[in-house]
């Protein structure tokens, strides 16, 4: 049983509604109380990089706004009516019914209601995401389980080179759009065809295309394993699991080699891409070396407070490329016990034999208490959320908001992934340092 949580860094399972909103022309339909949509959107989109409502998010999301009536007498009729009229009013290509606590506790038969519309040809699925069931990382996997089982159909043929990209969770990661596009560009650079699914692109057509991919690429420490496993089971699509979000030359080149080998891309093509990209990358890194070595503006040990995607990706970059020393890393999403050994192992094998302690849990007090216990001889670098600006000030740290909630930055297409992303991150870190006294 998890304890109380101060300073939320993710939301409940119903937060998966934002993963639906991230697919162009997909429309979430919430069967829940009146405040759920507003609260979740406010947390994941509004107060987190100011990502906006997009096409069908925010207060545009159809919702039953359930009240006592639906709790006492059941909400199935209200849901049926709401879906029927959503199909008339809202212009979408895929409709996803997501339930909240009220429906899941009273036990509405949502499947029965939704099947009625599906049988009449509506592109609609449902997923029971009552907030008490888990966090939105859990909800995100439930959502994909539902789409795979209720919506996807086997492809006539496999399209060689087509890769479904599964990685960071839209909106939860305020940098998701730029990150998915950066990874897609990396895949293109070695001749593959990425299927990005979320953000500007093909919308629901990219969802329908999922079964025709040559393989699924999961770029994540653990989240998404169920999804790619289910796709393998149902459509026999193999998957490559690459645990770390690639940031910087070391990791991005390793990533390209791993993907190239798995996809059967000729090694020469991959190496040519890596050579070209690393040369360009190190042109800029060389320019930064003067600042890093000729001035005294070096941060002390670093701390990350982020989900496992970013805690691992950032730590690898900061250790393996930037040459910094890890102090402690906090992983904020609920990582199921079965996956913890995978993650622990990743944090025990950095270059130069470095390891980093890891703490699991979303409670802000853990971060505060753990950091207060430590002695920092230099001003630490703290890559966390906007909540962590307070403790950073107390520790006289250099703080950059990289994880939810990022309420002190507007984020549009920015990303820290890949070669260019690492340059952005280096710029951002040193801009914080240089701006801290001028």
């Amino acid at each position: 049983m998890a304890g109380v949580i101060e300073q939320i860094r993710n939301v409940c399972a119903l937060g998966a509604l934002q993963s639906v909103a991230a697919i162009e022309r997909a429309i979430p339909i919430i069967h829940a109380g009146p405040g759920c949509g507003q609260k979740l959107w406010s947390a994941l989109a509004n107060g987190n990089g100011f990502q906006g409502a997009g096409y069908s998010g925010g207060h545009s999301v159809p919702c039953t706004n359930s009240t006592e009536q639906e709790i006492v007498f059941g909400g199935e009729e209200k849901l049926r009516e709401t879906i029927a009229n959503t199909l008339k009013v809202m212009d979408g290509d895929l409709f996803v019914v997501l339930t909240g606590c009220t429906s899941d506790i009273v036990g509405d038969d949502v499947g029965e209601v939704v099947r009625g519309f599906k049988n009449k040809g509506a592109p609609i699925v449902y997923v029971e995401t009552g907030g008490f069931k888990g966090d939105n990382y859990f909800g995100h996997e439930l959502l994909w389980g539902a789409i795979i089982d209720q919506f996807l159909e086997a492809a006539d043929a496999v399209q060689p080179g087509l890769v479904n990209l599964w990685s960071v969770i839209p909106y939860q990661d305020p940098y998701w759009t730029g990150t998915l596009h950066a990874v897609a560009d990396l895949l293109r650079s070695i001749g593959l065809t990425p299927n990005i699914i979320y953000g500007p692109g093909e919308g629901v057509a990219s969802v329908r295309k999922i079964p025709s991919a040559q393989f699924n690429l999961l770029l994540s420490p653990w989240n998404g394993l169920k999804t790619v496993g289910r796709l393998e089971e149902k459509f026999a699509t193999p998957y490559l699991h690459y645990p770390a979000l690639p940031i910087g030359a070391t990791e991005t080149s390793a990533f390209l080699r791993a993907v190239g080998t798995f996809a059967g891309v000729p090694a020469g093509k991959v190496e040519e891409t890596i050579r070209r990209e690393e040369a360009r990358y190190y042109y800029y890194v060389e320019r930064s070396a003067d600042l890093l070595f000729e001035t005294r503006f070096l941060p002390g040990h670093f701390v990350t407070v982020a989900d496992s995607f970013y805690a691992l990706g950032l730590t690898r970059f900061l250790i393996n490329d930037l040459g910094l020393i890890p102090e402690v890393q906090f992983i904020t999403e609920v990582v199921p016990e079965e996956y913890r050994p995978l993650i622990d192992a990743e944090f025990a094998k950095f270059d130069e034999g470095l390891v980093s302690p890891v703490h699991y849990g979303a409670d802000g007090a853990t971060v505060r208490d753990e950091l207060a216990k430590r002695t920092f001889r230099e001003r630490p670098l703290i890559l966390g959320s906007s909540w962590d600006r307070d403790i950073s000030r107390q520790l006289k740290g250099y703080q950059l908001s990289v994880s939810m909630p990022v309420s002190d930055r507007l984020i549009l297409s920015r990303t820290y992934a890949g070669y260019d992303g690492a340059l952005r991150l280096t710029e951002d870190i040193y801009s914080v340092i240089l701006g801290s006294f001028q």
Partner: protein
Amino acid sequence: MTINLKSSEAPIREQRLGAITGYSGTLKDLVGRTGCGGTVKNCDRTFSQSSSCSSGCAQTLLAGIVDAAIVNHAPIGCAGDTIYHNIANQYGRFYREWGNRNIQLVNTNIEEPDTVFGGADKLREGIREAWRRFTPKAIFITTSCASGIIGDDIRGVISELADEIPVPVIQVSCEGFRSKVWASGFDAAFHAVLTGIVKPPREKQPSLVNMVNFRGSARAYITRLFDRIGLVPSFIIPFSTVAELERISEAAVTATVCTTLGSYIGTALEEQYGVPYVKTIPPHGFAGIEAWLRGIGAVVGKQAEVEELIAEERAATEGDLAELRRRFKGKRAVIGMGPSYSQSYLGVLDELGIEVLHAASWHYDQRYDYGEQPPAILRAAERDKDVTFSVADQQLFEITNTLSRLKPDLYFSRHPGSSVWAAKLGITAIPVIDEYSAFGHRGLVNFGWRIADALTNRNFVNKLAERVKLPYTEWWYQQDPYTFLEKEAV
């Protein structure tokens, strides 16, 4: 006594105030039918979009009390709005030069087993942790749909911990499913403050004004105005302390910038402690501020000083107002705001010479706790011309349909997530985020100049609208905006 402070919770607005979230008609019709004890029946919708709930409104007020803490007894998603509450908190602290600090709130993280075995253990842990972490002067427990349905005995847990936690621990009943009127959450918060914090007066403070507001941006302006009539404002309840709230029973008068917000606490303080509540229209625009100051002046016997002040403020701003009216000639607008602002801004836009084509109100209180209809709608109904009026818990599909039909020059809205949709339609949208927009004479002209600026450069909205599609079918734009509003059974 209309407000029962012996009860453990405030009844929701639907029960207390005849509040509705579904109506379509005209302003005069609504006012006429809800006068003299008459009521209109709420109309449900057969299609609706995501609204908001009481818990957000309760928490936004309570999280602002600087030395209190909140235990949000709920699954983690219910704390989703605390990120924005913290932005508001940091912003307010910054402008008060208080230094940064996060809000003090823990969520009890209700999970599946708790829905079976109950969440009392987690609540107990939440209260203990809130005390250990923040040593607050009071702890508020905000409830949720989940805690309400599983039926946790919150009062029982509170009394169990009475010896252990040496500060007031107060239940705030704000389960989202209980009310469609999110403003019921304001009342839940005020009820908790009134029953758990406020103490009987030791002695009256004849110059103290309880100024009920949200973020208090106009503190300097109000302090200056009040100083002229010998009064000192205390801005409640965000950014106040528990000690300040304990003493609001000693004030000379309670005033508010928003009657939707202030009527519960204002009425309760008047009934319970004899602190007069100013029941005028809200202080927006010339007419608003003048009626409001006169209301305050009458209570404290400073009528002459008030008249002198009004004359000065008028003289300082009349020139600007004339220029603004000239500029706005022929401009047409739609309003979509909470009831107090929707009603009050009908007057504000009249003063600026902007014609209102339609007003939407996010809910409608048929009468306030003191038994009368909202003053601003009565005033608006005195105008010769009637105006179409709708009540909806921010149903954007109705608003979008209405805007695309009426094609106004301006859309005035209040509530996050509302104005942007008008901008996407190419309509100049003026979000009234700050409750003190158009406050007083000077606020009105400042607001006017802000509108003038927005109309001067429309590049952003024009170019946005050319490229963006809204999520509605062509079919919907052909329908009456109130197609899904059930007809009122007469």
